[in-house]
């Protein structure tokens, strides 16, 4: 008999209270991002107010050095961060995952050669690689997504390759080959479904990483264009006014910390729930 979804969620929350807290934070983040136009009291780029206004009833998070409402910018920043984090991770982990799955399944020289490419990419310090890519591609939100996807691809390829190396030796794969299944069918119907749990964990864990890297790139002036409400760019502006307007630094910093905290808790919980070796797993 199937349990009602709410009861299942309640049971999972009971087994993973920290994960539930993470899911709550992420849920608020997602709702904030989706309903940003309705939630933000002002435009994120409207410099219509006096600069350096401290938090007050009219401006709960104060205004920045150009007279923009910090609350509106933090809310719109959630949309930017989530969009960049989600899309870059989906693209990077999916492409990297497919790369790892296919080369591991094929094996031989192709696998060995592709792993050397992965080694090369992983040998480069991630932030340096991202900075180089942004310098080459130019500043835009789409280019941040591309840079992050490139960053995430080798890790995903390496992780899923390791998994597929064991899967491909499984009896059911042998059996599928023995009855004459073409390789694409074996991969699509028998290998990929068995990598799904790992793929989901990779996605959830890496979203927070992508958000931090995006914020870092913007902090260094090479992320989203300067007028976009990126939390990282807000931090940069905040560092220039630490003494007269500490709220410019505090609130975007809090937003980044809370988001990463929530995503990490959620990612850990999903990993635990999908790992049959851990007690309390779904399996």
């Amino acid at each position, binding site marked *: 008999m199937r349990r009602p979804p709410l009861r299942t969620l309640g049971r999972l929350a009971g087994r993973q209270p920290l994960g539930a807290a993470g899911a709550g934070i992420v849920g608020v983040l997602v709702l904030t991002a989706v309903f940003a136009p309705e939630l933000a009291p002002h435009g994120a*780029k409207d410099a219509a107010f006096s600069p350096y206004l401290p938090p007050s009833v009219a401006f709960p998070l104060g205004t920045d050095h150009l007279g923009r409402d910090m609350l509106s910018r933090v809310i719109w920043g959630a949309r930017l961060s989530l969009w960049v984090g989600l899309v870059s991770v989906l693209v990077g982990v999916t492409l990297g995952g497919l790369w790892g799955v296919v080369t591991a399944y094929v094996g031989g020289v192709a696998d060995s050669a592709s792993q050397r490419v992965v080694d090369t990419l992983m040998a480069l310090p991630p932030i340096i690689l991202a900075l180089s890519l942004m310098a080459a591609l130019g500043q*835009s939100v789409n280019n941040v997504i591309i840079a992050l996807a490139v960053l995430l691809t080798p890790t995903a390829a390496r992780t899923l390759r390791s998994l597929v190396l064991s899967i491909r030796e499984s009896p059911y794969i042998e059996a599928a080959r023995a009855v004459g299944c073409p390789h694409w069918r074996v991969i699509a119907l028998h290998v990929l479904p068995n990598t799904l749990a790992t793929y989901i964990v990779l996605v959830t864990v890496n979203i927070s990483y992508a958000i931090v890297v995006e914020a870092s790139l913007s902090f260094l002036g090479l992320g989203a264009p*300067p*007028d976009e409400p990126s939390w990282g760019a807000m931090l940069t502006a905040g560092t220039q*006014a630490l*003494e007269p307007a500490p709220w410019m630094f505090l609130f975007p910093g809090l937003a980044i910390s809370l988001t990463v905290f929530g995503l990490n808790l959620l990612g850990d919980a999903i990993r635990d729930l999908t790992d049959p070796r851990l007690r309390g797993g779904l399996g």
Partner: protein
Amino acid sequence: MRGLLSFCAVAIAAAVALAAGGAAAQDKPRYGGVLNWFDYGDPGRLDVHAESPLVVQQATAGVYSGVIHYDPDDPSKIAPDLAERWTVSPDGKTYTFHLRKGVKWHDGQPFSAADVKASFDRILHPDFKSPKCGAALKPMVASVEVQDPHTVQFRLKFAAAPFLGNLASSWCRVAAKHVLEKYGDLNAPDAQIGTGPFRFKRYERGNLIEWARNKDYFVRGLPYLDGVRQYILVGGPTQLAAAKAGRVMLWDAWPPMKKTQADELARARTDVDIYQASINTIYVLYMNAQKPPFSHPDLRRAVSLALDRQELVAKALEGAGVPCALLDPKLVGDFALPLEEVQKVPGCRQPKDADLAEAKRLVEKHYPGGLEIEVAVRTVGNYVDRAQLVLAQLRRVGIRGTLKSYESAAGYAVFGKGEFTMIAAQDRSMDTPDPESLFSVVYSTNAGSNYGRWADPKVDDLAERALRESSRDKRKQLYWELQRHILASPTAAVPIAWVEGWFFVDKKVRGYKPALTTYDNNTFMKVWLAE
């Protein structure tokens, strides 16, 4: 004019001297020590004849000498440098300069009038792009002739009042003929061979420029310093952090500190004198008049009407600036149109409702759904902040911009080639304190910083007539007519404000006097460090 300039110089100098406690001037100069200074960006190229960024001039300032220069002891006056003295012909069209004897280049070669001719033949050559010295001198100088190894003559096309001021500019430096022949240009660090008080010691890209004392300097006993180190510090927070940590001893050039930064520095250091001053620099927004959409005058007019200069000054400059002015009355006195008149001009007047409505109408007339543009900005000073404000203001009239940022030298390269649609923020410093400088720097067709490639024959005609005019009153009338004409025209260079700000001098630094332009008096020939 001269009286007003002297007044400005004295006022600045007095502010510094007073802040220093007045005792410094009585101290005996002391030899030794290294002055730590900074450049706002990496110059990349070092050819002072061919470039226009302040960092190029700063990087090479102490290495070269001019025929004449602004007096380090009183920067409002013009003083001999490589020339000992000069005479002017009765018709005012021939200037004869008698050069010092026994001067040596940093590589030991003797200096002569041939070097002066080689330098100015290069600067004045019609095919040579010299955005500073060349742009200032080409309209007035016909030729440079050697009379003997120690005498050189400048023959003018007409008697031009600003000639000496332009020649004294720190961009009109004399380079060695043999160096120009060997290297072809002055870009390489090895080509930095001058006759100035300091030798060019090293250039670490993105990090440091260093000069060392020239023991054979032609003024006996100078310089006092063993050397000057210029740290390349990009970005306001880095510059302020270096200042607070005592890593730099002098902040006298662009970009000025904002009030909040000056307050922060004052809380961190008690061993500095902080002062507020103008740096003879105008903040301009450029549009490219050679390509759509701003090839159409309606769109240029719309941008000018949409920009709220007062808001830009209040927020981006924290109030330290003179909004709207084409010439700043504080700097050029009554050559500037009265501010009351300027502030009634469409685009500048407040409230802005009528101007915004007209701007919106003009944009909708040509782009019914609004206009999307790419807006360029160099990532130096607080340009990115200014650009964000500009974008916010333009959105009010249906112009939606996306920012494209450039590193300093890369930005100049793009602007010079005209590969932009709009430059949201660009300060242009005057080469001399004369009102003529604005037009030779920004507004004439051949102006060194006419990035928007706007050409208006009436501007060129009025600017040249003002150059030729010797009567002060008539010059004033011509400059007023010129300002009224530009303010009413759909210019590609919208004047936003004259920039002011805060600066500091470490109390150990003695003998330094701020100049009337941001470029002059940076050779540090008479600067010394107290114990």
